[in-house]
């Protein structure tokens, strides 16, 4: 019987702790989209939206929506003091040019070198779509991937080489999963933390590349 892992909300909660006060941050689809729910009230983070907003506040209250003030997922939002509007090219000057402090995206696979696959499932129906993922992967200053550690069939998603279509090469800095926090370093993948109740061996058992384990690995604080 496998040990319990974190929920998607708890992955988001742990990822939120990577973001310092005052940071500029882009949140992608999936688990990253939950991260803003877990910031301490007193902390200010300038959320970036690829349609041309820096300094997005919470979702707009019912009756106060402005359909010209929406995030990249079409959700009506609000602005923090200090917010700015700009065009879509400048929005990606910020992502690709490495001007945002952190970018968070979901992932299908991450390789031991930090290669990322997250835009296309092989054999999926439809045209597929890239959106801003490849611009972010190419230039993000610090890219954090938030994902489940394994597939539904318990196959590793942290692999030696990505078998899914690539989004970018050697772009991931940190992976936050339902089992661990892992940093991509020059020498390989360093296991920084494990989820409560798990051991480094539990994480290694469902991780394809050999993890670098420096002494005793602390448990995540949520």
């Amino acid at each position, binding site marked *: 019987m496998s040990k319990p892992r974190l929920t998607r909300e708890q992955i988001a909660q742990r990822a939120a702790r990577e973001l310092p006060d005052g940071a500029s941050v882009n949140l992608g689809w999936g688990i990253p989209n939950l991260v803003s729910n877990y910031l301490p009230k007193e902390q200010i983070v300038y959320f970036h939206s*690829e349609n041309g907003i820096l300094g997005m506040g919470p979702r707009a209250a019912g009756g106060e929506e402005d359909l010209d003030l*929406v995030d990249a997922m079409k959700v009506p939002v609000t602005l923090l003091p200090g917010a700015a509007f700009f065009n*879509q090219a400048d929005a990606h000057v910020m992502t*690709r040019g490495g001007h945002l402090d952190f970018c968070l995206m979901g992932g299908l696979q991450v390789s031991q070198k930090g290669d990322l696959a997250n835009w296309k499932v092989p054999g999926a129906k439809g045209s597929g779509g890239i959106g801003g993922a490849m611009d972010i992967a190419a230039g993000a200053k610090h890219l954090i991937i938030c994902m489940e550690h394994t597939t539904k069939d318990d196959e590793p998603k942290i692999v030696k080489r990505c078998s899914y279509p690539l989004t970018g090469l050697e772009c991931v800095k940190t992976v936050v999963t339902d089992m661990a926090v892992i940093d991509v370093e020059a020498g390989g993948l360093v296991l920084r933390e494990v989820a409560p109740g798990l051991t480094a061996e539990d994480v290694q058992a469902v991780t394809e590349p050999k993890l670098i384990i420096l002494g005793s690995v602390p448990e995540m604080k949520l």
Partner: protein
Amino acid sequence: MKDPVKRKIYPTVDEVIADVPDGATIMFGGFGGAGFPNNLIQALARKGTKNLTAISNNCGTGDGELGLLFKNKQVKHVIASFPGPRSNYFQDQFAAKEVTVELVAQGILCERMRARGAGICAFYSPVGAGTEIAAGREERVFQGKRCVLETALGADFAFIKAFKADEIGNLIYRKAARNFNPIMATAAHVTIVEADEVVPVGSLDPEIIITPSVFVDRIVQAKTLRT
């Protein structure tokens, strides 16, 4: 030369797009439900122009926004970053091989248009290097990074949604409805603007103009339409 004031103004959305021919390549501004030139799109649907190449971030939601042109089978090729799973008319025609698509990373779509507008023919970027969208394309290494050659992207027409235009075509936008509009305005042979309000020359503060008038060819007044 005609009086520069008012020579760009057209009386109706149907007249402002009346000469768009079959087979035209058209850029459409808009993202996330904001900043779509929906009055111009509806006029193009009424006109029934066919075999279009559409350049836009996505392909509409149902028959909203660009979706109407797919519903009417007016588009044969799309250059887009994220057509979207809810663009059902596009997705059905794509599956049936009635429409072709070139997927472009969103920021690179912007930069290819910006290059065209700026008179730059091509440039190198690391976006997509090593991925399937760069397969077979020319690569070089700069600053230690694998980079892919990108070419400028232009169009016959750009359909732009602005908040206010003055009578010579200086534009301002509203909030996140700006998105692709100012970039596309620079990259087409003929830039057609629908604006909520058309105001006299001199009434917009020069400090806040986002698109200067030189990029704008035609203007029509039309209230924001959400589809």
